């Protein structure tokens, strides 16, 4: 089948014909194609096979008659391990090893629904349903074997892609059974394995992407190469919302290899930003052409924005009444009558995601209305949505190829660069690979929202909490990215977790004060918890200090009298960190936890202070509460990574503006933590098995910085209420 037909007739059609599906996936021979589907009018997906059930099928398992076992993975891998962990959930129940399967990344086809890696959701969102598909396929293959052999099901079992008949020792491979299995009724409630019998889930299974990533063989978006491909480098204005007046391209056109210029608009959420692309036969020529381009911008009054002024605005707003997001009891009365009162303002800055792979995308138009995209993205479905919306072509006319991503951290949830490449390539009669510079990646956003927290607590004379308030003051992601005029709904996303910690805090009244901004803002790993958790957990520490209590014991004995996951987590942290063991002089340890939509994690950090008021991080202990764990080693990696990212945000970098432009451009002035600055992180996982399952990618981030700051207080008596801070001079 030719490419155009493949795009025109995507696998999303209902009543999918098995033969065509196999053609689409390049497999040979009829076989078992099993997945999830919706019957018209149904709310819940059912397990369904191609050809046997009249439903819109999202195939997850394809076994062809030659024995090739393909597993579809809808969750892009940005380094968090979904390339293995998502197929692993299917393979476990299907009784195949990870070496036996071919993993195919889905491309935003409608029937797969959400295909976005974000919100620490890839495992917890798929755990039950993908295991069910795997188990159903296994039951069908076993049944097919019993029919061939005319033996009872109870005498057969599956292992390693083969069905065995115990009494006779006969065996048939899945490939030999696939055709017959594909014709059988689909079991709707297959028996899932007892977790004690798991061979893959819960084990430190080596990841199949590792050999590719240490040999230069892994293909990232930036590595895609197509015949006749041209390159694009783009001139963007570093002052947001500027208008392009004109450009002078004589010098650009003199650069050897430059072909043409394309004027277009970068579409980021609801924003449209003017831009000019230089197209050339090498990236270097395109980039040189861009440097030679003289663009006249009209800043339209946006060249006055200044971070120092904006932060002063947020400070002033902290005195205002905001939207009440939680109210319990009577905060005002309890606070004003409390014998001990505490207040503090915490200030967290804008930061950039800065994945190591700069944003890039390759686009090829097959004629006027068929588009093919190769991209590192966190969501093929979102790539399609954003291109379809901005370029006005039907979603089904876009084929998306998802490659490995050189980091995501939330940045690749927003596919403005894919829309850019598609817009540019539309004006070029060749495939075009567009690559941003690191400067563009650093300066053009979207950024994590700057977020201030005004904290208040009233304590009794013996240190018990009587009143508590966490008021968040910030712009919002939705208001900038989606251009929402009504910002009242933003209060919930910008106050993530502050009202739902397990702490027993009476008379709690939490608020949100909205602040306008024109800079594009977006989710950054662990979203708003990456900022509000710092204020929350440092302030709890302030309360403990005011009460004259040990900060961990204060949490356990005063704030967590009832059993909870949080209490269990803190008890585990106390144990693994040897919390009660005395530390050398000049050392201090701090604790913090945070529970939010993605999950629950906590840290104990140990630091030592030096004579020159520098701080050295001696040891980091982390506990993450998961319920069930798929790959413990990958969890440890994610936590180590989250701690590193949190440390960078705490001690290194902020995005700040002068004259409407970011002051930071590249890693020399937007530094990241380097190897010599990163301590060991000892990771402990709470996973007792069972259906309860929490996220991994993000919960390791929010509690790190507050645990560090609390440790610094313990060591030095100094409170850190503004990030980033200089760890070499506290």
């Amino acid at each position: 089948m030719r490419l155009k037909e493949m795009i025109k007739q995507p696998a999303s059609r209902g009543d999918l014909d098995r033969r065509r599906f196999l053609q689409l996936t390049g497999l040979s021979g009829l076989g078992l194609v099993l997945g999830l589907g919706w019957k018209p009018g149904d709310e819940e997906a059912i397990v369904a096979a191609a050809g046997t059930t009249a439903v819109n099928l999202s195939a997850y398992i394809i076994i062809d008659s030659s024995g090739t076992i393909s597993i579809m993975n809808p969750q892009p891998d940005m380094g968090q391990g979904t390339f293995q962990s998502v197929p692993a959930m299917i393979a476990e129940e299907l009784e195949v090893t990870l070496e036996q399967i071919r993993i195919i990344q889905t491309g935003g086809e409608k029937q797969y629904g959400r295909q976005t890696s974000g919100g620490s959701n890839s495992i917890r969102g798929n755990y039950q349903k993908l295991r069910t598909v795997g188990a159903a396929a296994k039951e069908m293959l076993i049944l097919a074997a019993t029919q061939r052999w005319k033996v009872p099901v109870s005498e057969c079992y599956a292992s390693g892609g083969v069905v065995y008949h115990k009494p006779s020792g006969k065996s048939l491979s899945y490939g030999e059974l696939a055709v017959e299995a594909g014709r059988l009724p689909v079991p709707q409630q297959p028996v899932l394995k007892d977790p004690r019998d798991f061979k893959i889930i819960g084990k430190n299974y080596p990841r199949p992407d590792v050999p590719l990533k240490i040999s230069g063989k892994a293909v990232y978006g930036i590595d895609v190469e197509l015949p006749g491909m041209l390159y694009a480098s783009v001139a963007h204005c570093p002052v947001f919302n500027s208008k392009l007046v004109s450009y002078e391209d004589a010098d650009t056109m003199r650069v050897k290899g430059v072909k043409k210029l394309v004027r277009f608009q970068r579409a980021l959420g609801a924003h449209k930003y003017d831009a000019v692309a230089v197209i050339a036969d090498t990236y270097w020529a395109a980039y040189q052409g861009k440097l030679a381009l003289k663009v006249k911008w009209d800043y339209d009054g946006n060249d006055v924005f200044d971070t120092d002024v904006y932060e002063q605005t947020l400070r002033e707003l902290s005195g205002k009444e905001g939207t009440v997001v939680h109210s319990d009891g009577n905060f005002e009365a309890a606070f004003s009558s409390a014998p001990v009162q505490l207040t503090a303002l915490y200030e967290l800055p804008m930061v950039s995601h800065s994945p190591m792979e700069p944003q890039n995308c390759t686009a090829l138009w097959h004629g006027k209305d068929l588009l093919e995209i190769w991209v590192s993205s966190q969501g093929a479905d979102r790539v399609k949505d954003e291109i379809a919306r901005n370029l006005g072509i039907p979603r089904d006319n876009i084929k998306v190829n998802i490659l490995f991503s050189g980091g995501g951290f939330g940045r690749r949830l927003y596919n403005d660069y894919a829309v850019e490449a598609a817009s540019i390539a539309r004006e070029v009669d060749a495939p075009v690979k567009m690559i941003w510079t690191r400067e563009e990646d650093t300066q053009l956003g979207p950024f994590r929202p700057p977020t201030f927290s005004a904290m208040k607590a009233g304590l009794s004379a013996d240190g018990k909490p009587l009143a508590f308030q966490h008021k968040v003051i910030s712009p919002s992601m939705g208001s900038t990215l989606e251009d929402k005029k009504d910002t009242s709904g933003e209060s919930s996303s910008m106050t993530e977790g502050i009202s739902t910690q397990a702490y027993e805090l009476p008379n709690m009244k939490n608020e949100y004060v909205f602040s306008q901004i024109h800079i594009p803002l977006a989710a950054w790993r662990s979203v708003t918890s990456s900022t509000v958790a710092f204020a929350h957990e440092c302030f709890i520490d302030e309360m403990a200090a005011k009460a004259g209590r040990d900060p961990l014991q204060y949490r356990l004995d005063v704030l967590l009298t009832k059993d909870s996951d949080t209490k269990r987590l803190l008890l585990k942290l106390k144990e693994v960190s040897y919390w009660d063991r005395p530390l050398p002089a000049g050392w201090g340890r701090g604790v913090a936890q945070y529970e939010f939509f993605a999950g629950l994690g906590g840290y104990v950090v140990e630091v030592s202070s030096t004579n020159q008021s520098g701080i050295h991080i001696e040891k980091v202990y982390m506990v993450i509460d998961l319920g069930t764990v798929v790959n413990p080693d990958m969890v440890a990696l994610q936590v180590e990574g989250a701690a590193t990212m949190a440390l960078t945000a705490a001690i290194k970098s902020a995005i700040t503006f002068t004259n409407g432009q970011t002051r930071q451009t590249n890693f020399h002035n937007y530094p990241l933590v380097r190897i010599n600055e990163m301590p060991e992180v000892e990771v402990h996982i709470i996973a007792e098995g069972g259906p309860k399952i929490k996220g991994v990618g993000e919960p390791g981030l929010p509690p790190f910085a507050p645990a560090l700051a609390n440790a610094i207080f313990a060591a030095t008596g100094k409170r850190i209420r503004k990030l980033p801070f200089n760890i070499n001079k506290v």
Partner: protein
Amino acid sequence: MASITLTVNKKKYTIEADPQMPLLWAIRDIVGLKGTKFGCGMAQCGACTVHLDGEAVRSCVTLVGRAEGQEIVTIEGISDDNSHPLQKAWIEFQVPQCGYCQSGQIMSAAVLLRENPHPTDRDIDEAMMGNLCRCGTYTRIRKAIHRAAEIMNA
């Protein structure tokens, strides 16, 4: 434009390129080896590290003209089958997350181990400080380099 002969992983390539083009883009876009990565373009991140006559250089700031007549080794050239001690150790410790920086990490580590077969943590930190990893694989890189040293010295 000039005709430039490069020796990459023991193979000769004669390319037509602007001698001012960074070696990185010549390796990636003309020679066609994509394992060497673009990260910053100003020798800040190390993702583009290759060996030039045995020395680790940042190919994003090394002019292709300068590389002529020298032995260039990229990640694709250190072994055909992941048998280099560093690659074995990287697999053993499952070092990569996104993996984008790992070519550069391994190329820097290879020079370290050649010059110092028994590096301390401090030696590793000093040699590897030029290689950024946003995913935070640093502590595993440290362990894997120690392990690779053991494999090499065994």
